[in-house]
């Protein structure tokens, strides 16, 4: 069976610090206003019974991705390991994939934007004109995962080949690995916990699992 990379996020542990958001921006040089990963703050209930839940969200790398089906150019593709990718050379920026994604994971920037108006040296160095006027989103740091094939390391275990957000998580809430391997870190974790996937009812078969509780007694 081929690999299927997935992410598990333990919502009991997430403290909403946005370090994963910052790590993603740093790793991928996304412009201001574009956040491939972000942490939502959901308030629930009425005083005095109120709770807050921090919900990290990004592309769910669905096994049945609606964005890929609607893409008229085949720019959105799915790799054998489950990663959903965008070919910037093919994309025409029609935004159909943005409409198809139930996770609000994609965005298009039409003009260069910099944190302080004028480009800083670091922004100039990392500016990628290919990303203008095309759809962009979280890649699960695919360059790192591709590196694993060269180095023989294991994504989710070895930091060099693990997505930046997972590496950065200060509370150990984020986990990454091959969900098709029953002995992987992520499979073991999911076997021991109660979890859900966002909007599963839409049939997208997402690759991000949210852990809500320990195993049922």
């Amino acid at each position, binding site marked *: 069976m081929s690999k299927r990379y997935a992410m598990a996020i333990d919502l009991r542990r997430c403290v909403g610090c946005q370090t994963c958001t910052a790590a993603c921006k740093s790793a991928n040089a996304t412009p201001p206003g574009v*956040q491939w990963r972000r942490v939502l703050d959901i308030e629930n209930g009425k005083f005095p019974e109120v709770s807050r839940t921090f919900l990290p969200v990004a592309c769910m790398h669905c096994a049945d991705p609606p964005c890929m089906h609607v893409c008229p150019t085949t720019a959105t593709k799915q790799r054998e390991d489950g990663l959903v990718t965008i070919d910037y050379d093919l994309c025409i920026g029609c935004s*159909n994939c943005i*409409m198809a994604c139930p996770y609000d994971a994609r965005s298009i920037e039409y003009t260069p934007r910099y944190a302080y108006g004028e480009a800083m040296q670091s922004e100039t160095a990392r500016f990628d004109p290919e990303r*203008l006027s095309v759809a962009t989103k979280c890649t699960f740091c695919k360059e790192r995962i591709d590196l694993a094939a060269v180095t023989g390391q294991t994504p989710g275990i070895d930091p060099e080949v693990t997505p930046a957000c997972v590496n950065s998580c200060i509370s150990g809430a984020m986990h990454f690995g091959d969900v098709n391997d029953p002995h992987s870190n992520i499979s073991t974790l999911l076997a021991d916990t109660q979890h859900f996937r966002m909007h599963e009812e839409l049939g997208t078969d997402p690759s991000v699992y949210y852990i809500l509780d320990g195993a049922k007694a």
Partner: protein
Amino acid sequence: MNESRKIGDRTLPRQQRNWDARAAANFICGGAGGGLLLAVALASLHGEDLRPLVVIALALVGMGLFAVWLEIGRPWRALNVYLNAKTSWMTREAMMAPFLFASGAAAVLFSLPAAFWIAGLLGLVYVYCQARMLHANKGIPAWRHASCAGMIVATGLAEGAGLLCAGALVWRGLTSFGVLLAALLALRFLTWWKYQASLRDAGVPIGTMKAFDAIDVRFVWLGHVLPAVLGVAAALAGLPLLAVLAGVLAAAAGGWFKYTLVCRAAFTQGFALPWTPTRGEGKAGPGVQPGWDRVRPV
């Protein structure tokens, strides 16, 4: 409020901004043009020379495509739109267009009856492609219902019949098509009623129903009841001006609905929790789906 704050707040469904009035224009003009081609094919049995209406229909489809071309981020790569006929309804819509223009041109240049019918059927297929394009967008709850696709088709048919009736200004013989218009408006009304019921039944973002509720009364009375009555009266009394008025009202209402559907009622899915996580000594709490008109069952 700055942009980063807005992005951080995307827990609630938000009105989509990526498809604006230019995208809506494609659905408005393309649907009306496709519907008009079918209506002209039917009306061509009457023996009138309706080739100018075919030209208008093709111009409408062309205007819609031009509008959407203006909206895409990389317009000079637009031909890439043809690369995914396997699953993309946008590709299929684009593939229909050249055949539609070719058959329409054949109808105009050679007056071939078969060309009128082929153009009419391709017009219907074009409208169907647009309907399925919206339906495939799982990220927009208002669009992904099957009845939304039905609404787009019903609207295209009614708009086509409406524009045909508007042609009674020149071709008095088209006045009798007021009855057809009334029948198609009845179909659109039933579809609208079913669409709204299915949205309320399945649950949608609050903003979606607000946008539809804002147009509902005027859409029904000015876009259906009044033009249907005028259309039947025009046909029975043989008054072309009434048929023109009925047709314009029916077509304008269709455009108004599609603008609302694309630019006003299209809210994103948002996020939901089936139940809230346990923390420390605490217990799991009830689920939540912010910004929806129902609470997700736990």
